[in-house]
């Protein structure tokens, strides 16, 4: 009887250890995949560009052109509780929106050699932690206390006008 009890207990201990090990590995895998923040935009101009839209490219252009000037745009925004993005801190709105608008105001037909940077992207792990902290702090104090994080996206480019 005692031997049976010891064996049964030992099996339970081993099972618990195995489950914990599996949970640890799973947690590590989740953590690894949750450490990468990816942001993107919709397509820019192709080559050759057959559309009549503002020419936007991270490279140059083979069409003859003259340089009008240079532009730098920063879109600011706020991330609330790791879930809601408020403001203009998106690559799309900064590059295809604000940068293109600035080029139009300068009289340009395109922006070349575009460089951009989301200065403080948030990984899924960080967003999850913000959300959890916001929920917990709200429950604890009764008043909603959500975590806010400043966000910003900066873009640069050379404004050109085609001469042919």
């Amino acid at each position, binding site marked *: 009887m005692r031997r049976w009890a010891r064996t049964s207990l030992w099996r339970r201990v081993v099972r618990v250890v195995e489950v914990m090990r599996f949970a640890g590995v799973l947690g590590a895998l989740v953590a*690894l995949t949750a*450490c*990468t923040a990816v942001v*993107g*935009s919709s397509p*820019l101009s192709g080559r050759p560009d057959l559309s009549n839209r503002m020419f936007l*490219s991270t*490279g140059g252009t083979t069409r003859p052109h003259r340089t009008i000037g240079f532009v730098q745009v920063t879109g600011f925004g706020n991330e609330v509780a790791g879930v809601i993005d408020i403001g203009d801190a998106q690559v799309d709105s900064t590059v295809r929106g604000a940068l293109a608008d600035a080029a139009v105001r300068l009289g340009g037909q395109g922006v070349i050699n575009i460089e*951009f940077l989301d200065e403080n992207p948030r990984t899924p792990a*960080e967003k999850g932690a913000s959300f959890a902290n916001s929920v917990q702090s709200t429950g604890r104090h009764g008043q909603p206390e959500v975590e806010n994080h400043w966000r910003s996206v900066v873009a640069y480019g050379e404004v050109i006008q085609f001469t042919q």
Partner: protein
Amino acid sequence: MTTKRMARLAVAIFCMMTVGACTVINTAVIQPGRGPLITSGDVSRPYQSLGLVQATRRGVLLFGFIDVVGTDLQYGFNEVLTPLVRRMGGDAAINVRFHQTQYLPITKVLFVIPFFFIPLPTEFTVTAEVIRFTDGGASWAPNQAPPPAQPPSVE
């Protein structure tokens, strides 16, 4: 020279190298022909833009040296950017810009011995424009000429 003196000399040389080293170098090797084209320049082939992309990978260095999640250039290009380009259906990533957190050797050593309990934050960031070639050929180096057109079959 006695063993004790040699050990002291080795420690002294190590300390001098650590304190005197002011340049940190990290490299990534891109295997040609495997996977999408990755270049920091432009390409001369016709293409369709699939959009801009930025990937940021954050982690920590344990004990100053152990990169837990992989935030170096090699990992970033192989395991972050290349799969991302594939997922978007792209043939290439052009005008790539990248950055990796780099620490001086003395900083890393300080976080091994006195501050071993503090993990060093580390980060890899890459931006690029993902494109798909529209001339029907496979991905190849941007400066190479496209393959000659197949001669028409005679029937």
